[in-house]
């Protein structure tokens, strides 16, 4: 039953490994965007500490958006997507595998380097675990919602721009609760409520987004 799931996961991870430059570009983009802020707003530690959660989260969101259009584009162009849609196993399974592989290669690296960048912006050390946790819960939501957008804009001229317009508003709640969790922890009010909401969002997206994504892919390839 899960053979398609693992086949797609293994292949996408292998492709990410063969094209590791692409993965590094996304990560470098994340690091550079965060590093630009001290230059832009000045190296005042109090100010940087205050904007750190928002900056890290917005940068993570843009890094995710930057690589989203690649999620299905290659498979669409070379006909692999047609073959996957003709699979005798439910499309939801391999869609989920693609999103998981996407998150492992773009979301997870961001989660891993984020604490270092948090230190760079003088974020309180006590808030770093919450930053990691909020990104670990939030970036999969970005990948799941983004995949629906990527599927809908597949094969559309100027799809990349349209994807950003379509999907950025949907990222807003994730941004609010993700950055809010870090801020709440830093100001001492506790991040539990925000994290629980993110967790709930993840559960919802995990259940619904693959179905919407599979349906969108069917429409896009028709």
């Amino acid at each position: 039953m899960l053979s398609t799931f693992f086949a797609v996961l293994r292949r996408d991870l292998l492709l990410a490994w063969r094209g590791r430059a692409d993965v590094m570009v996304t990560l470098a983009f994340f690091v550079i965007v965060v590093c630009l802020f001290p230059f832009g707003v000045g190296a005042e530690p109090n100010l940087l500490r205050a904007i750190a959660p928002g900056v890290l989260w917005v940068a993570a969101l843009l890094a995710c958006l930057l690589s989203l259009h690649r999620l299905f584009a290659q498979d669409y162009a070379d006909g692999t997507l047609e073959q996957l849609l003709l699979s005798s196993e439910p499309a939801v399974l391999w869609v989920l595998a693609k999103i998981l592989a996407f998150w492992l290669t773009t979301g997870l690296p961001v989660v891993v380097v984020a604490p270092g960048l948090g230190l760079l912006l003088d974020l309180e050390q006590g808030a770093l675990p919450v930053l990691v946790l909020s990104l670990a819960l939030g970036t999969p939501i970005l990948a799941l919602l983004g995949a629906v957008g990527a599927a809908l804009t597949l094969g559309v001229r100027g799809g990349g721009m349209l994807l950003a317009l379509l999907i950025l508003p949907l990222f807003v709640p994730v941004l609010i609760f993700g950055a809010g969790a870090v801020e709440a922890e830093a100001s001492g009010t506790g991040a539990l409520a925000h994290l629980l909401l993110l967790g709930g969002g993840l559960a919802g997206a995990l259940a619904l987004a693959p179905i919407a994504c599979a349906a969108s892919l069917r429409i896009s390839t028709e």
Partner: protein
Amino acid sequence: MLEADNLACLKGDRLLFRGLALRLAAGELLRIAGPNGVGKTSLLRLVSGLALAEAGEVRWKGTAIGRDREAFHRDLLYVGHAPALNDMLTPLENLQFTIAAAGDEADAESCMQALVRIGLANQLDLPARVLSQGQRRRVGLARLFLSARRPLWVLDEPFTALDVGAVEDLAGTLSDHCTAGGMVMLTTHQDAPFAMPPKVLDVGAFAC
């Protein structure tokens, strides 16, 4: 058995064909004919369930294909225009993935044998981007050797870019599949040496 009644296909805002009916029984080979742009590929996509018909329905063993998609796709092998090859993977990796993605078991040994049999013994571990058009097409067709248990084969221009020897081999493989009780539906502009004369369906006769 595959049946379709009264099929109509809309492409953009143009009706390609309407009132098209077809029947394909076990052991039959159906060639879809017609000039370029008449809707041959569109018909194959309708029949395989990749696209939805504007009117009419396609039935497999008496059931509309949309009703039990997974069961229909278990019986179907579709090789489209695009070869479904990723340039960064080797032919072997590509073939193994295609088989597994379709929901079948694929061990490296039988995939390797299929590629050797179709004439790619020396290209097994090269990335697909260095293959020629004909070799790329062969990788896609190597699936046929591993999918004999899928009765319905739908092939879009399978002979394109193949050399004379490969065309003969492929025609033989398709004839064998039909002899064994399978069904083949294909488009081609070439006269291929099939063992039995194929049924011909001219889409042009239903064009609007």
